[in-house]
């Protein structure tokens, strides 16, 4: 029997009814990055229906998705495939799966930790930390330098006053600290 726990987990987290998919492929046909995916959104939904957890969590597809929501806007069954891929990303991260794009996860983790500390984003810190962490020091350097010369990359971070309020939000929604259920 398929892994129904996993199927339910994905359904709940994505707030979509994946069983309704009848695989017309309209999502795949409209996805702007499907040619760089191994499966495409429709096949991924099929794999969810079969409960193929491991394959999905290690796939690259879920990180290739650009979040343009075109799939969801066109699906005849009102399934937002983008949310499904989002749920898979979240599960992959939570369960420490063998993530196909560790660089992406690092980027987002840095982003969020910066927001948690200061309440706002600081590009210099983000880019510096990301490039260091992924050992990708020289990409985008010329563009970055130009942006800096134009005054579009402030050196000093902007820190909000009531940082504790932001930290409270982070704590309240941290899945590792609290059972968060939503979309019931």
């Amino acid at each position: 029997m398929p892994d129904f726990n996993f199927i339910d987990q994905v359904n709940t987290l994505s707030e979509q009814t994946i069983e309704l998919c009848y695989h017309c492929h309209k999502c795949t046909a409209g996805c702007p990055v499907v040619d760089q995916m191994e499966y495409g959104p429709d096949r991924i939904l099929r794999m969810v229906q079969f409960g193929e957890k491991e394959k999905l969590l290690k796939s690259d597809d879920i990180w290739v998705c650009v979040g343009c929501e075109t799939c969801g806007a066109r699906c005849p069954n009102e399934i937002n495939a983008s949310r499904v891929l989002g749920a898979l990303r979240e599960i992959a991260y939570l369960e420490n799966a063998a993530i196909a794009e560790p660089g992406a996860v690092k980027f987002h983790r840095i982003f969020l930790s910066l927001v948690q500390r200061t309440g706002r984003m600081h590009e210099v810190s983000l880019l510096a930390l990301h490039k260091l962490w992924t050992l990708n020091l020289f990409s985008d350097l010329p563009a970055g330098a130009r942006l800096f010369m134009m005054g579009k990359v402030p050196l000093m971070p902007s820190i909000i006053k009531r940082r504790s309020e932001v930290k409270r939000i982070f704590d309240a929604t941290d899945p590792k600290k609290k059972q968060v259920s939503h979309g019931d």
Partner: protein
Amino acid sequence: MSRIGVFICHCGINIAGTVDVTAVVEQVRKHPDVVFAADYKYMCSDPGQELIKKTIAEYQLDGVVVAACSPAMHETTFRRAVASAGVNSFRCECANIREQVSWVHQDHKEEATIKAVAISRSIIEKVSRNETLEPITAAVTHRALVIGGGIAGMQAALDVANAGFPVILVERQPQLGGKMAQLSGTYLNFIAAPGMLLKIIHKVNTHPNIQVLTNAEVKNVEGYVGNFQVRVDVKNLDQNPASAEQEAIQTPSMVEFTFEVGALIVATGWERYSQALLPEYGGGEIPDVIDGLAFEQMLADGGRRIRRPSDGKVPNEVVFVQCAGSRDPERGVPYCSKVCCMYVAKQAMMYKERVPGGQPYIFYIDIRSAGKGYDEYVQRAMTDCHAIYLRGKVSKIFRDGGKVIVWGADTLSGRSLEIAADLVVLATPMTPDPGAVDLGQRLHASTDANGFFTEAHVKLRPVETLTAGIFLAGAAQGPKDIPETVAQASAAAAKTLQLFSHEKMTVSPLVATVTAELCAGCGACVLACPYGARSIHPLWNIATVNASLCQGCGACVVACPNKASQVHNWRPDQIMAMLDEVL
């Protein structure tokens, strides 16, 4: 000499654009039998018809030729106009100078005009020799006989009976209800079939106009529309005491009845497909591989009977195989059995409700859910009962230990699958009742290559056969579900009532005749007639024609060696005169 009026139609530019209508008028006017000739833009219009009527009065015409479009279009119109002006309608004919001249010779105007003149003159020759004829009337027996006591037959019987006419309902089995009695819940809302049937059976059994004969079979049918003689053999006389009306010939276990009826409704239903024809699915040898109807019977009664036939355990993994034998021109039946996608979704939901821990898998090629609310219903099977739909035809089913192994595929993920099932349900096709072909021959109602009764016209006459007075209802005509069956049954009843709404029926008089002095009683015409309209009179030994059945096809004319057989208004002298004009 006749006094014929000829009207040449322009049909706008359809005819006049190619044929020189003025010239045609000139030429036909010269014919000795023609006292009036004119052309007009649209003969079929009201003014056009008025012109005919006026001219008949003014010129005392006794025959009319309208040179225009095909008689298939407006012959009836013109004949009606002529009749209303007091001339016999069979002295009016159409000369086709549109479909046979202007439409096909657009680039040859001169030749077209010559041809139009030739055709018009040939029809003038015909009309001048036409007899005046009156439509033939025949009596209609206002009683119907329904073959088959399932939902189709019962519905048709009730509709005819409720209109006030007597019906005889003939059912081969000991009880009414047909296959519907073997169903459990039905889609869309799981209403139990036996419950629905009970009401209908009660109505049928207690209806004063319906005579029910169970354990009965139709053995022979003679006659024609409005006047059939049907022989019915009934087992167990006790249940069906003979009434004074019918002749009863008693044999130890069988009673023969002959009924006079005006219409027959064929509602012989369907039969199960034999699993022996599916060797790759076990060929009927694996106890835990059953068909849809068998699973229906398990689902009834609250599901207490949902058990594996082999060991009586509750099945936890059930695989449904759609298209098991259908859509298979190579090895099974070529057609789609229409109801399986719907009932499998229903069975999966009912199974899941009765065995909550169970898992249904459904192999399909397409989902055909074309009725109102049907597609939404199938979606419910996917969401509510977590039925896993796998797109692919099952290749092989075999036993392994206590399980039944199913080898299938899922094209949507591009993989092959193997499922070790506890129970397999094959959605096999509906096939026509095995006696249908034989019955069809006796009724002169044709059946198609698959054994289903053929309707008279695929689009416009779905409940009639080509044999007048014999109508169709239900799965006998093709696989269908209960609502469609009920609709068709009522339609067949409506056609029957149409027949019964007159005391007599009228038939075209353009039928064959026999010149007695020339007839040798050889019987060649009887063999030639495709409608069974000819017979040899037992006393006088000459051929006779049943005008109600004769379609005027002329096969008998060709067959008769003595030229004794002729068709009214299509006599050899007429045809020769027509040929003289055109050649």
